[in-house]
């Protein structure tokens, strides 16, 4: 039993080391002094005020939200269609096709970023909303597909057949039977897509332009070029956004397990 206790102490240290360091950002964001020193001196909300009154930070936040919502819509729609297609038919090369859709997960981000930069230069898509949405869709869609495929695996095919035999068309069957049953997987996939886009840095760094930057790009530029503590407040805001969205996703996947089991 002592060895188990020892493992327990070890695990607690790991958890502290995983989670605690990130939280230093929170006190930093309430720092009164205009430096990045820790521990912070005094308490002030001036960096949050700075953020919410600075047009360039607000513009970046708005761009990020816009790109993330559009990416979520595109990646989820296209991803759900692809998952349905993959689950409905058996054909030679199906595994290859699935692998093809998941490939963006394993290719080094910098390589894809350079490729998109080169392609977008030619297509005049650099720093445009469609450019950002397409680039983010590529890395978000695999997460939608894996989540939706997992949901579809737990789906009883006889329910769709029953629906069809009762006279429902394919589209009606999808919206009244299939979609409600796989909704938790779709929701989780959509939220993962949102967060992936909202947090994406490396592709965005390459396809940014002075007219369109997302929040992570602005954070990166601010960290590497200036020493503005506003970035700590921004980091806390993005952190809260991602954590809230992921908690909802977690809740959605939890629920998924009950009706299937």
């Amino acid at each position: 039993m002592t060895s188990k206790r020892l493992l327990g102490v070890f695990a607690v240290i790991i958890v502290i080391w995983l989670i605690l360091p990130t939280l230093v950002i929170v006190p930093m964001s309430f720092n009164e002094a205009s430096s990045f020193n820790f521990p912070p001196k005094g308490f002030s909300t001036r960096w949050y005020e700075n953020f919410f009154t600075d047009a360039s930070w607000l513009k970046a936040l708005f761009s990020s939200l816009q790109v993330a919502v559009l990416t979520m819509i595109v990646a989820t729609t296209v991803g759900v269609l692809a998952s349905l297609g993959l689950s409905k038919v058996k054909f030679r090369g199906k595994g290859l096709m699935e692998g093809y859709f998941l490939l963006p997960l394993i290719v080094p981000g910098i390589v894809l970023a350079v490729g998109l930069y080169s392609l977008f230069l030619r297509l005049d898509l650099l720093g445009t909303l469609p450019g950002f949405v397409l680039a983010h869709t590529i890395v978000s869609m695999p997460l939608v597909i894996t989540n939706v495929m997992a949901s579809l695996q737990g789906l009883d095919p006889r329910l769709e057949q029953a629906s069809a035999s009762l006279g429902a068309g394919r589209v009606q069957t999808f919206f009244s039977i299939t979609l409600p049953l796989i909704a938790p997987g779709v929701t989780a996939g959509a939220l993962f897509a949102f967060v992936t886009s909202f947090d994406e840095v490396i592709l965005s760094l390459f396809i940014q332009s002075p007219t369109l930057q997302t929040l992570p790009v602005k954070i990166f530029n601010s960290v590497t070029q200036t020493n503005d503590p506003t970035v700590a407040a921004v980091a806390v805001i993005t952190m809260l956004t991602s954590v809230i969205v992921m908690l909802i996703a977690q809740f959605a996947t939890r629920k998924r397990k009950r009706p299937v089991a």
Partner: protein
Amino acid sequence: MTDHTVTGGAAPAGAVAPGADAVGAKKRGPKNWRPLLLLIPAFVIVSMFFLAPLADVFIRSITDPVPGVQNYVWLFTTEANLNVVLRTFGTAILVTFVCLLLAYPYAYLMTIVSDRTRNLMQLFIMMPLWTSILVRTLAWMVLLQDTGPINGLLAAWFGIGPIPLIRTTFGVALGMTQVLLPFMVLPLYSSMSKIDKRLLPAASNLGANPVTAFFTVYLPLSKPGIFSGGVTVFILGLGFYIIPALLGSSKEIMISAMIQQQISVFLMWGQGTALGIFLLVCTILILVVVSRFNKGGSLFPGVDR
């Protein structure tokens, strides 16, 4: 094939079972390619904005500034490049090894605790994934700086002057390990949870001491998890850009930063893209070799968490 005897369309209305059969037959009939149309949007998007950019990178690497393999010759004959490659691989190997050492006991503990504790342990491992790498790196920048809390404590307790933590390989490895640890724990746990708990007592009944039992019984059985976790961490580590850029020094850059530098700073598209293709080929080779070696292992180790 037997379903072909049931012809679709003329199933009596109201009876569910024959109707279902008819639909089943229809699916195998001449129309069974129709759901394939659903794949078209995804196929078009992935082909245009994933495959085409990668092809573009490859073509640039053999045509820019002139057609030929001079960019690859440059890559393999310049000593500075080889140093960057060695540093990148070295860091990725170090991080993989440290992750394994930290993740193994953690994942093992997950297999012997109650369901509630296990869920909690899993939640704690997943939670960091919910925060962007950028924010976590920013936090390490604050902690590791010369006037940061770690150096402050060192000075207060031991009276030693600021130790350079940021802008060092140590800083990079620390940040990378923290980000990549979950990718090691999850596959390890999934492989360990399949190991029969009675095997270790059986080994000790047969006279093995705990160390022998661990190395001859438990460790080999957990190999699939070690492989898939190790490969995921290693290939993700090879491609890291943000953490080395913010926690490392400009003198000790890694492949990703060098690609960015060649293209954005020096405008050497050919050399930058050749480095990119080299990184891509390394990643694919590692995946292929390991999936051959580790039979039954997924080609996408990170996906089936």
